[in-house]
């Protein structure tokens, strides 16, 4: 099993997690959303706006001057303030972003402020240039945290709204004391394997468990019995006796 330092380096290269330290000294992990989900979210929002504008146009068409005025103002409001309105709501996301599990936060993890939301949405014009969100796309592709120009100026971040992983470890394997003391990262790997066990095929589970067979004294062997004993060690590590 790899040393933690080694793991840390690889993780930094592969992951796009943006850490944000709170005054209490813990790191909150923000997961910036990439180009693809944000692009889809934009398309959804665009369709919603088109639908609203079309629906209102059919009604206001019968109302003469005031109707047209209302429609033009609505056009203007939807154009510039649709994202601001939804970003300042409790969900901090436009309907499109909500569908794809995204939300907008300040880059220190706090809820977005009104000024920041205005800034990032007014500067959308600059992201749009020279055509089809050219500069915004380039900025998102080149930056580690996937910010577009408006996000840079507003100090905001579009993140994946994480649902906490609530999978617990099932207690179906009898606990087994490990043959020798285990290092913390070895313990973590065993417990992670036990959490994932129900989602793996039995064959793959046996293969993975065989790698850790040394912990239950079955070094070099594999099979369902070995797997049960390895997962039993995981139970022991968790604290079941």
């Amino acid at each position, binding site marked *: 099993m790899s040393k933690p330092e080694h793991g840390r380096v690889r993780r930094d290269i592969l992951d796009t997690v943006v850490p944000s330290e*709170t*005054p*209490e*000294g*813990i790191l*909150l*992990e923000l997961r910036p959303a990439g180009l693809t989900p944000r692009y889809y979210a934009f398309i959804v929002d665009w369709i919603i706006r088109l639908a609203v504008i079309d629906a209102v146009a059919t009604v206001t068409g019968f109302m*003469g*001057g*005031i109707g*047209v*005025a*209302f*429609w*033009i*103002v609505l*056009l*203007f409001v939807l*154009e*510039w303030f649709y994202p601001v309105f939804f970003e*300042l709501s*409790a969900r901090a996301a436009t309907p499109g972003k909500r569908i794809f599990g995204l939300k907008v936060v300040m880059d220190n*993890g*706090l*809820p977005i*402020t*009104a*000024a*920041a939301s*205005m*800034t990032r949405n*007014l*500067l*959308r*014009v*600059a992201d749009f*240039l020279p055509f089809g969100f050219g500069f915004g796309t380039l900025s998102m592709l080149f930056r580690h945290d996937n910010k577009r*120009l408006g996000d*840079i*100026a*507003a*100090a905001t971040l579009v993140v994946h709204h*994480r649902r*906490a*992983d*609530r*999978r*617990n*470890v099932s207690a179906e394997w009898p606990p087994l004391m490990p043959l020798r003391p285990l290092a*913390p*990262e070895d*313990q*973590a790997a065993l*417990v*992670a394997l036990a*959490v994932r066990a129900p989602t793996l095929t039995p064959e793959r589970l046996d293969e993975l468990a065989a790698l850790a067979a040394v912990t239950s004294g079955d070094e070099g062997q594999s099979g369902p019995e070995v797997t049960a004993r390895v997962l039993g060690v995981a139970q022991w*590590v*968790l*604290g*079941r006796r």
Partner: protein
Amino acid sequence: MMTPLRFEQLYQPEWTELDTLLDALSQPRKANTLTEAPSGARAGALYRRACEHLALARARSYPTYMIDRLDDLTSRGHQLIYQQREFGVERLRRLVSIDFPSAVRSHGSYVAAAAGLFLLPAIVIGLIVFRQPDMILSVVAPDNVSDFEAMYSPSAESIGRTRDAGTDWTMFGYYIRNNVSVAFQCFAGGLFAGLGTLFFLVYNGAFSGSLAGYLTAQGLSSTFYAFIATHSAFELTAIVIAGGAGLRIGHALVSPGRLTRRQSLVKASREAMVLVYGVTCMLLIAAALEAFWSSASWIGPGAKYGVAAVCWISVFGYFVLQGRHAD
């Protein structure tokens, strides 16, 4: 020995309590399940405990579900405890009475530069077109020129619009959308080292100047100037201020001083945003005036110039004097 399960058993009640409290505190108006009012102090204490637990759980590599649960609890607590609120009537009142005029004064040099970038081409191109009316074709398309001539002819029903443009209300909507969008573009153009702002200011200046020069040369000056005099007090100043905000952002990028370029940009946008709020309000006033007052052909030029003078003086008075005590 402390095992993950023992740890969970010990602190589970605290986490559940924090969970309920955070839910109750984030939706204060909705009926919550607690019998008494949710306590902020208790939530704060439990939040700090949860932070400790998260740090311990991470350091000891406890199972993912436990770390994730604590991560979720602490980030919700963090959001609730450290959030900033900046809405409300009080904030708006402060913006109008102090923040906006004071921000215009503190951005004085940028606003002055924007005014120069707008007025200089306006005057130069205006004079050229006045001497040689044909020159307008190098700035404005021929169709538009004939439209403009019709719009400001003294026989027009409503001044400043083509015959088929629709009612006052329609034009009100149109002016809002058009003018505020121009102002927002002037601001956003600052992100390209100020060059976008520069372009929008010079282009709009040249366009307005050539129009004024041409209409004056055609002898339509009486209707044209009476038309623009009033609302331009709000509209032109607002566009120039939006340009000033854009130049501020551009300058922050080109010359960040002791900050990093990014910090400098974030700071400049936060401060310039106040200008954009104010500009939006001014353009709403301008759109109302332009649609309902300036275009009315039954109001004589004398009355329009009188009101225009009052508007210009109050706008300048507002920027020079309002909110000075707070500077």
